[in-house]
């Protein structure tokens, strides 16, 4: 751990706040009622927007209640899932396939379609040798935009539910979808793609290049429309790489600067959404407290992962090679890591991608030390609420906030309130489902997979580490992350179980969130009194972190002892 490395992480954290804050305020404006861009020279944007609503047969003013909103999301997602499945199956017969990729097998297409529609981007395939340019561009990258926008739309609907009083509706899905796509994701994606292309990420429709190396061998160099896809895979917390090794591949992530920009893109929108939330509920101090809690857990992740990886694995230390930082190397556990990133930057990425539901990686998690690899494992299990996925992270955090407020209410013996709304039995039920369904599913699926022959067949590293691989796989898919202990292999069993995990992991919490919002929207607001539990001070920050640790944290602890903890103790 050098001062320089830590300095890079500090600059990252600062940039997140400095850019996230104004973006959050901008996003609050984007989603406000009425026209967003009707005035002045931007008037044509509003004209296009209204055209879109006409074509999809809706009106801007026509709002939906939580059920109707949720059903529209579901129908839209299921149909898109079908299209994505078909594109993969048929890619061998379609255009934009210069390298002659064949159709993707059925179980793999099914898993991958579920993976991208749910914003997971789990990859049981290697992109550069499986998918045609058509599938990458018009299938996968479209979902990078759309699944992100769906998450953002649902979040806005939920926040409206919290903000509104005695209301029945949460907004119009098509409006929230369109605005997320066109006014937020698209401009950011263009900026990020441009920077990436400049730094060396390919953007071409030519097929692979062939080189004759200096020693006379033939080398195939995969390329394609990479930058446009990588930009949105980071911004939309998708994470599905163009290449198998994801953002460790120099063609996805060529320099220290490209790495910084991609890493920033991972958490930028989720961080901004916390500020957007504060603006929309007229309580900036509460949002700041939530931000602080997230930030502290983020910092804890860094402070565990970085020393563990810099210290290196027992194998490397025993081997006798030089793993000490300095004198022309960054040292530490360099297994499955890239020289241009070294330890500090790899740690920063590891924590950012697992706090969010991003799941792209710039180093191989399977090769991380026991303590290092436990950090993303736990981060996922908390439900990716530390900034989290675009949209899904913050509405996931709302479940914990409701539980925290409820616990505080029990302690002081008063009806719990959140932002003036009374939290009653119904809200607690929705929040409990939202917070506990996914962790429970992770444990059940892991158990099933470990207990069956066809489940165990996916394991690559034997012994304790194989258990961690399995746990991580279902943790990642259920929480819609998509990162992996990548040795875990594809079988029929793991493809179908994974697809189920991703679909339930996406839509159950989403409906819990919408239902919670629907219930809250109907409530009146009680004025703040001396007895109201404050949700904007350090006490609340501590309480919120405590609740997260007690609910999800304790649930994963037994599994942790079977995996990383045993591994950390055996040498």
């Amino acid at each position, binding site marked *: 751990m050098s001062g320089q490395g830590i300095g890079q992480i500090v600059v990252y954290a600062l940039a997140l706040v400095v850019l996230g804050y104004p973006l959050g305020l901008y996003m609050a404006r984007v989603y406000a009622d009425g026209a967003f861009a009707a005035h002045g020279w931007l008037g044509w944007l509003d004209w296009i927007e209204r055209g879109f609503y006409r074509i999809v047969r809706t009106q801007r003013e026509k709002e939906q209640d939580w059920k109707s909103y949720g059903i529209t999301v579901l129908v839209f997602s299921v149909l898109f899932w079908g299209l994505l499945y078909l594109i993969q199956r048929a890619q061998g017969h379609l255009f934009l396939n210069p390298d002659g990729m064949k159709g993707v097998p059925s179980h793999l297409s099914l898993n991958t379609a579920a993976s991208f529609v749910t914003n997971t981007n789990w990859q049981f395939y290697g992109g550069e040798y499986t998918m045609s340019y058509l599938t990458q561009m018009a*299938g996968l*990258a479209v979902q990078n935009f759309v699944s992100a926008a769906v998450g953002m739309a649902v979040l806005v609907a939920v926040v409206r539910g919290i903000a509104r009083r005695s209301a029945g509706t949460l907004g119009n899905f098509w409006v929230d979808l369109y605005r997320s*796509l066109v006014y937020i994701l698209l401009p950011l994606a263009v900026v990020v793609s441009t920077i990436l292309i400049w730094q060396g990420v390919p953007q071409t429709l030519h097929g692979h*290049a062939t*080189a004759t190396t200096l020693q006379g061998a033939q*080398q195939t160099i995969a390329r394609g429309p990479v930058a446009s896809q990588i930009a949105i895979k980071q911004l939309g917390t998708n994470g599905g790489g163009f290449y198998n090794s994801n953002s460790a591949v*120099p*063609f996805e992530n060529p320099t*220290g600067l490209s790495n910084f920009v991609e890493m920033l893109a991972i958490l930028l929108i989720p961080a901004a959404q916390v500020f957007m939330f504060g603006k929309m509920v007229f309580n900036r101090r509460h949002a700041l407290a939530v931000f602080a809690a997230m930030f502290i857990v983020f910092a804890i992740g860094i402070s565990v992962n970085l020393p563990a990886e810099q210290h290196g694995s027992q194998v490397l230390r025993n081997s006798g090679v030089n793993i000490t930082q300095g004198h*022309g190397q960054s040292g530490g556990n360099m297994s499955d890591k890239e020289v241009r990133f070294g330890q500090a930057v790899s740690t920063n990425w590891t924590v950012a991608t697992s706090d969010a539901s991003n799941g792209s990686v710039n180093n191989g998690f399977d090769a991380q030390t026991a303590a290092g690899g436990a950090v993303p494992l736990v981060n996922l299990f908390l439900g990716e609420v530390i900034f989290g996925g675009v949209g899904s992270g913050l509405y996931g955090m709302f479940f914990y906030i409701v539980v925290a407020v409820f616990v505080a209410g029990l302690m002081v013996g008063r009806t719990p309130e959140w932002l003036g709304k009374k939290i009653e039995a119904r809200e607690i039920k929705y929040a409990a489902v939202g917070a506990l369904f996914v962790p429970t599913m992770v444990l059940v699926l892991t158990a099933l997979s470990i207990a069956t022959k066809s489940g165990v067949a996916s394991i690559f590293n034997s012994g304790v580490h194989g258990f961690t691989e399995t746990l991580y796989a279902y943790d990642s898919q259920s929480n819609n992350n998509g990162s992996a202990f990548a040795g875990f292999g594809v079988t029929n069993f793991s493809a179908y179980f994974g697809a189920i995990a991703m679909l339930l992991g996406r839509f159950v919490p989403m409906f819990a969130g919408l239902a919670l919002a629907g219930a809250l929207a109907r409530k009146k607001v009680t004025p703040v009194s001396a007895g109201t539990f404050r949700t904007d001070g350090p006490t609340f920050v501590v309480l919120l972190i405590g609740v997260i640790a007690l609910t999800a944290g304790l649930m994963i602890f037994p599994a942790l002892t079977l995996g990383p903890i045993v591994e950390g103790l055996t040498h």
Partner: protein
Amino acid sequence: MRNVVSSVIAIALLTAFFGFVYPFVMTGFAQVAFKHQANASLIERNGRVVGSKLAAQEFKSPRYFHERPSATVPAYNAGGTTFANLGPTNPDLAKNVKAAAKAILKLEGPYNPGLTIRQIPVDAVTTSGSGIDPDISPAYAELQARRIAAERKLPLSTVQKLIKENTDGRSWGFFGEPGVNVLELNLALDRQGGK
């Protein structure tokens, strides 16, 4: 039903725009403004493509700097990247590291009397994340310098100068870690001549 109709229309529109218009526009822009990078930073010598700045390639000759180990099949496959995925306690990891260290001692030992395993930097014996990491650490380049100088009958200082020239520092002097681009360094060596 209403939802189905709206969804089908929206899916068609969104796929057309985000699946074709957006990437095509970015491709057009990239091909005009950053043609070299957009086509995978290929390097030509005498009119022939010899590789990419961003992909490692196999060097076995003692006259060249060597890359880090690679887990791809075949090694340094820029069309099939992969991690090694060996866990921190996997016996294969210990075996691979040991074998790599032994090979380096055997190769570099004659040019570096008294060389011990302690002097081998860790990136020299570990697989990279992509399997095509184009860089080695400056420490690993330094370790190989004496061999290159002897094999090419160049002064050590010349080799060290070339290493320095082909080291990519941190972006803006701050982001990332320095690395020596092996392909560019070897091309520079070939240009330098020597016997």
